């Protein structure tokens, strides 16, 4: 009966897909290709109008197989993709985009660009409206490729030097690339999303032509617009831009402060800390202490020499001056129940001493001040240091013993 036929057909289709999956996952590309051909052939015989043609499956698997098949060529790949484009109007632009990616990964930038511009001019009634999102992306990538061409031309011109700078045609070409790229890139970065690469390229273009105001505006929008997903890179780009243009310390600090709130473990926090420590304002120095403590909360920084020496320096400074001890008390209060186990255990003392003597020195200093001279970490490291006749460990011991009353005040 027809129903039975349909059921059997469905079953064999599923079985065939299973075969393909098995083969693909075991890297048997030829086997997979054969299965795929029979799958496609079987679909041609599908007279049941109920289900739509699983063209996406064929497209995805076919691309995957053709990418790895030992006998496939770029030409075959392209012709397959062309077939897929006509087969699935609903995802025409997606197919185009992925095809361009494939071309780009194989170094065929011109073909990819051609492909993209063809896709941009594609019109298919309602379908082109439904795929507006993909269209924007395609335009953005077109802009990106134009940007690369532009920067190539730029490098050519810069290499030629002053005397040949008069080459107008090259320059004109470069400017036309700029215009196209700027137009397309500007479009995409107004849509909320993570567009790091496009923003960077666009800002580079603007900076080259001296439009710093626009660049700053773009970066600020990208970092501060609440419609965009929270993205630490946006703040980093803004900070780098401001730093390039010699902005005031104050504005740099305000950018980094927001980054600190978002991602306390960011690499830039070390720069931020040094910047704050150099600041004359007490409030900033205090923030600096908080920043470096927050950095060391994170497992990724646990054995970072730079961070520990920053902290040790600042703590030492505060303790020697015997001013602002309440700062230490405050940041220490919410950490004293877990930092000892996290940073200053006996096991870590042994390991740090074996692996990195300087690290253990910095950590021992901090431990000695925060936990007192009886702390396991400090005792172990100072004992080992004195045994090894290293001078700085002896001064460290003296320093901590001298300031041991501070421990009572900060821990109390």
């Amino acid at each position: 009966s027809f129903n039975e036929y349909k059921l059997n057909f469905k079953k064999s289709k599923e079985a065939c897909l299973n075969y393909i999956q098995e083969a693909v996952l075991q890297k048997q590309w030829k086997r997979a290709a054969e299965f795929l051909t029979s799958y496609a052939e079987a679909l041609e015989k599908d007279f049941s109008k109920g289900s739509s043609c699983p063209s996406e499956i064929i497209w995805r698997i076919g691309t995957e197989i053709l990418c790895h098949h030992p006998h496939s060529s770029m030409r075959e790949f392209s012709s397959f993709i062309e077939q897929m484009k006509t087969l699935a109007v609903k995802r025409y632009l997606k197919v185009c985009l992925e095809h361009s990616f494939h071309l780009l990964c194989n170094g065929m930038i011109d073909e990819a660009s051609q492909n993209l511009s063809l896709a941009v001019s594609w019109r298919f009634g309602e379908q082109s409206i439904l795929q507006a999102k993909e269209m924007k992306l395609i335009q953005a990538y077109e802009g990106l490729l134009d940007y690369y061409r532009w920067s190539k031309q730029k490098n050519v011109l810069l290499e030629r030097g002053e005397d040949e700078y008069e080459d107008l045609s090259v320059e004109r070409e470069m400017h036309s690339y700029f215009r196209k790229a700027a137009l397309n890139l500007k479009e995409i970065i107004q849509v909320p999303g993570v567009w790091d690469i496009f923003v960077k390229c666009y800002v580079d273009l603007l900076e080259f032509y001296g439009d710093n105001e626009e660049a700053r505006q773009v970066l600020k929008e990208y970092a501060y617009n609440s419609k965009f997903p929270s993205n630490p890179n946006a703040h980093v780009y803004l900070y780098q831009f401001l730093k390039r243009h010699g902005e005031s310390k104050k504005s740099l600090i305000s950018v980094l402060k927001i980054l600190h709130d978002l991602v306390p473990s960011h690499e830039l926090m070390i720069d931020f800390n040094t910047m704050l420590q150099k600041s004359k304002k007490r409030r900033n120095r205090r923030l600096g202490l908080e920043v470096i403590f927050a950095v060391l909360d994170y497992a990724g920084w646990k054995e970072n020499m730079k961070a520990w020496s920053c902290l040790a320096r600042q703590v030492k400074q505060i303790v020697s001056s015997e001013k602002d001890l309440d700062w230490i008390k405050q940041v220490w209060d919410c950490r004293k129940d877990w930092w000892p186990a996290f940073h200053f255990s006996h096991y870590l003392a042994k390991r740090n001493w074996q692996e990195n003597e300087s690290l253990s020195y910095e950590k021992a200093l901090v431990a000695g001040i925060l936990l007192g001279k009886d702390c396991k970490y400090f005792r172990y490291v100072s004992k080992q240091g004195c045994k090894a006749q290293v001078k700085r460990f002896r001064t460290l011991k003296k320093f901590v013993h001298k300031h041991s009353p501070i421990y009572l005040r900060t821990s109390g």
Partner: protein
Amino acid sequence: QAEVMFVPHCGGTGESWEPADAAAVPLLPPNTSCSIPQVVPQDILYHSFLRRKLSMDKPGPLLDFTKQLSHFFVDHPEDAFGSLGQLLHKNFHLGDSRVKKEVRDNTIRVTALMEEINRLEARRGCPWKRLICCLRWFAHLSRDWLFEVPLGLLGDSVHEELQLQWTRLLFDDRLTGGALAWLPPEDGARVGRLVYPGGEAMNRLYFQEVVLDKLPRARGSPAEFELNGRIQQVATARSDGEDFVGIRSDYHCGVWRVPGRAGAAPAPLQVIHTRVPASCLTVSPHLPGELTVCTQGGSIYLWNVETGLQRLRHDPQTMFFRDHSPWRWSDFTAHPRVLSFADRTGLQCLDARAPERCHFDLFKVGEEARCQQGERVMLPIYLGKAHPSQHLVATQFSVYVVDERLPLVPVLKWLHMMKAPPLFAQLSPGDAGRSHKLLLGASPTQEMLLLQYQGERRGGQSACQLVGHPQKLHSISSCLEHFQTQLPHHHHLLQQRLGAPAAGMAAVLKKDRQQESLLVFQLSEAGDVFYQRLTHEVAQPPAPDSRDEATAAPGSSPLFEDPASSPLLLGSKEEEEEDAGRPAAMEEAELSQERCASPKPSPVASSKATALRYRRWLKGLSEHCRDPPRHSYPPTRGQKRLFTRKELQTLVGDSALHRQAQQKMRQAMLEGGRIQHWDLPDSQTSAVPQPPEPEQDTDTLSTRLTAAWAGDWNRWWEKRSSFYKAQRQRALQERRRRQKRGRRWQGLSASFTSSLTYQSELSELSGTDPPPSPVLPGAGSPPRHSPPPSLELDEGLLSSQSLHSRGIPKERRKTLRDYLGLQAEGPPEPLEFPLSQDSQLCIPSSQSQRSSASQTRRKRPRMGF
């Protein structure tokens, strides 16, 4: 300036890891104490043709909870009716004798009721059946008071439990995380520990030392702990040089500490009890003795061995949108005080110091991650060993890598196409510049996938990308073909055993001088541990894959030409009728495994050592199988009422002998054993019954079988054939006489002899005499698939009653009937019967069945088919 380079996000060049073994290899001896079979849909679903009728009204599965209830009543009568039975036993009369007149008013004769029930049972499924009045009356009367537990309450509970079992059959999320863990050795050593559950109910925790030689092997006997529930998850983390092992069972969580040095004994630290089942337990990689626990009610706790439990949040609702699943999960993040908290809709990070105020969304099922419709979080894990701020989120469709610093937008997404949702994940981090190896595992299908990804390097500009090609690893069930050939039912048992859902996995990266290998351990729900090795092959110039060449058939469409595949495709249809309720994915997985195992050649011939392991494992399993667990039923009341004391006393004959027998019986009952033989001192009759003397008039089948058993089957045949010759002549004469009378010949079904006559006529027609000594394949034993049907087919062969009495399960009766009916329907065209020896044995049966089947068909309307 450097030329611009584009790198694919997925599928760049990765490392090549090739399987070193042809299939998974057993690591430890089988968990012989586990003999409880898995619950299958047939156990709890209605499987009669009534199902179709009933499911018209209510879509979805129909739970057969009356079956469970009746099992309970029969198996535990003491618990079901104990006290009232005791009170009322005077008012029930058991036995065949009539009720005495004086007590007839307040006594019920149970035997009559039983007869009615049996009659009812025989007509089960008949829509026109009517309850017999006295049964209905009894049911009405006793419904309220007879049961120890009120029937409604009991029914509700049973139904609830069945529903639970059914949802677990569809998807069991209690196993999330997996119950197998590897405790790596201290640097340089080769002895690590494997932590896994075992025992009858998977309630024993084992710490087994494993030596990582060329082949991993267990060393010594494992440290063992007996726990108070089935172990669902084993979680570990190492901090401060010690391993902390968290064990989750439904209502208890415990933590063990295992010192890093080899040989040190694991020490239990603390146990907590939860009122609702716990769904997650993870161990902190940052602080020793710290864990997080989630319960199904929506609570998350931070558990410190020293300071105790701290509840961070309690919210029965899901986070981002409404989802019915009570499953919750949590893990640690880069910050030791910040925990991730997940339900099916997404992930949040919350600060343990101020859980109400400080939290942010890490992953949401929705637009940001471009999730599909119906996509749900299955397993989130913290990838701290690879990158301090990255997490993996696995859904039933995809895997995502998310970064705490860039929340909500995944940095990597990949469609994994696994048939079942991944419940286990293992990370084995790569060194600088190397890819991280990520293993994903699913439970019911035993699938395992190996992915490689390259994380963003610290300070570097490279983005997170999937490299290499996702690779499928061996499942436990794929090693079936590497075992020795088994008897069919042993083979089936073995297949079932190996096909048990996966319960956990663990991975070890091992470096031996130049050779790197990845060891993957797998645990099945039956408690067996298997392993497989993958060796790293340093990149070579791409050569044509020899394996690929070998399998590439010259034909264009291997699917339809492959002889191995097509019969199975057909076979699957039949299977479906039997177990329609089974999840399709499971069936497919099995099928595909079966199918795909055959055409591809094994990559590496399994070495002697692994062959030995298979053999040993099988030996361990079969030794256990031969001695099935003895069930001891508690003595039930009532048997003695069958006979009164007086009746029993009169039966006593020879008193000394009798007493001895009684004593022996009692002793056997006390020991729970059985009486092998009586060996009474003055036994006139021998203990072993003599085979009955073959009588002259006994049926031919039994004589033939007896002859075959004795070994002189040939002689029997000769005797028979000479006997037939005479008989045939007689029959021919008879026939001629009948033809003369002008009556139609109708004696096909009369007897075996007449049909054999018919057959010998045929052989006469074709001109070949029946060979004097036919040598049949397997003459000694009847063919397995078609046992020679009994020749004394009575009319009732196909009636429900007789099928029932033959022990044929209800659900198969219809199949059998249909099958027999089909056989009978074929018109008897004599010339089409193959004239081989086999057919001579087959024909009589089909002939005689034909008549009875036609009678059954006549019966049908009355039976309600």
